[in-house]
């Protein structure tokens, strides 16, 4: 399939790709991430049981405690961090998370990624050009989220 490009602002440079871990419903940081496995453990969340490691994490925003960034950060320190981040609109908690993880990150998107990208799709994040590219659907990219 042809690749689809969504443009935005590159907030942290570099290029990375991986399977999309995407949800319009954000994850609660405090208690929502198992830092020792990098898995989403929020009960009933669409991404429950899936792993952050190597993923392109695409979330609408943050939720709950100010202890949001530290859970993604702790998972990264344990070796289970995401490869890249996409937050369509920034709030202070998502911005701290990006600054702390220091992986390629794009924000201020021109199109709604939640209408275009599905869980497991292969996605490239180019933080230098401010672009995210849908390389292939889950059939091509292979869902490695579980």
């Amino acid at each position, binding site marked *: 399939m042809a690749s689809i490009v969504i443009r935005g*602002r590159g*907030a*942290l440079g570099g290029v990375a790709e991986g399977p999309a871990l995407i949800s319009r419903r954000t994850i*609660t940081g*405090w*208690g*929502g991430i198992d*830092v*020792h496995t990098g898995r989403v*453990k*929020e*009960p009933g969340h669409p991404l429950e049981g899936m792993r952050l490691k190597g993923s392109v994490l695409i979330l*609408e*925003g*943050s*939720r*709950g*405690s*100010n*202890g*949001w*960034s*530290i*859970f993604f*950060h*702790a*998972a990264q*320190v*344990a070796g289970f961090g995401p490869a890249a981040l996409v937050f369509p*609109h*920034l*709030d*202070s*908690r998502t*911005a*701290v*998370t*990006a*600054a*702390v993880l*220091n992986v390629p*990150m794009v*924000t201020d998107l021109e199109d709604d990624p939640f209408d275009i990208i599905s869980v497991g799709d292969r996605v490239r994040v180019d933080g230098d050009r401010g672009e995210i590219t849908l390389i292939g659907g889950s059939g091509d990219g292979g869902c490695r989220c579980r």
Partner: protein
Amino acid sequence: MELTDTQKAILDGEGGRAPQKAMALIVRYAGVLGAERLCRVTWADLFCGAHHYLDVAVSDDFDRIFSTMALCTTQAARLEKMNRGCICYSGVEVDCTELPGHMLAGPNRQVQNLAMLRRFVDAGVVLSGTCVPYLLGFIPVAGEHFVSCESSAVLFLNSLWGACGNGDGIEASFCAAVCGYTPLWGLHLPENRRATHLVAVRSRPESVHDWDVLGHALGRQLPPMAVPVLTGDFARPDAIRLKAFFASLACTAGTEICHLEGITPEAGSIDQALGGNPEQGRIIVSDRDTAESVDGLNGNPRGPIDYISLGCPHYHIDELRRIAAFLDGRRIHPDTVVHVWTAGPFKYMADRCGYTETIENAGARVLTGSCPSTRGYPSGVRTAAYDSAKQRLSAAQETDAQLYYGSLDQCLQTAISGTWEGH
């Protein structure tokens, strides 16, 4: 990005390695936000101690843990002092003062926690041990810039006092406290503090519980990043009601500032709250919305209760007075453990007033410094009840117990009978 000579000097390492690393993170954070400048931070409410997520650093060395987890650097930097001119609180801690080590994961954790707290004290941090710093001397005045790791405190301080702070996160709060600056962005700028959504409150909240429920019912409807201004025919809420309201609103919607017409300082009128901007939306909170919130938080019928945790956010002394008045001469059910959480200075007052003795004679414990969310739950708990939506929501992430939610009176009656009677 524009840095002053002072800020550049810190970034160049003239203030030492820890401030240098802290400033590097703050500058990167500002870059992510697209902020053009930094602002001076004079109050920092931190999150100190051996919290469980620090285990990933796999080290017993304070400076290595602090460098990795707070300063976000792989090079160990020794924490000497927090920034001069920034008053620092430890925040709610991982262990409680009255039952130390009781629910921590082994004796090593307790030793590590005390050693870490000692280093923070040496660096100039006050051991506040509370999630309600704003009731205990943490007083950034209107227009002053603060950081806080406590979402409900951010909402309270912005909304009620007109102080300026964002949600940030634990790492950015530490870095701001070490280097003395944070990005001038978001609620640090007056133009971002104006109301975006008009909220018509039709549920006529009166009690603390009504306001706690209202926070959840409104939070479920608010879009991300919205700044609500509340209007409606309700009795003027006091700080204790607003404490509950802000806690449940913050944890449900992530709201960081909320105006109330005629009550909060930036909302003398709706026009003032909007600041000349058009409203982006209107929200109505009806009795039906609040009833749905209560049902959603408490779908459980009658049943025995193993554990009741009260005091989220930590109780004010007047709430302790009320509990003591209820429990005076009564006896808590032997199969129900009741913990009443407050801040150390309020417990001191309660001790002097005899409230602690009355509450503990009835069979409950008055505890300070922590809460079940940060220190864990007693073992063997199958059913637990709360008077706080925040605590109820947080518990769902941390325990498999069946969870109940109701007013303080309902929780106290349950404490006596040992059985939740439904709502």
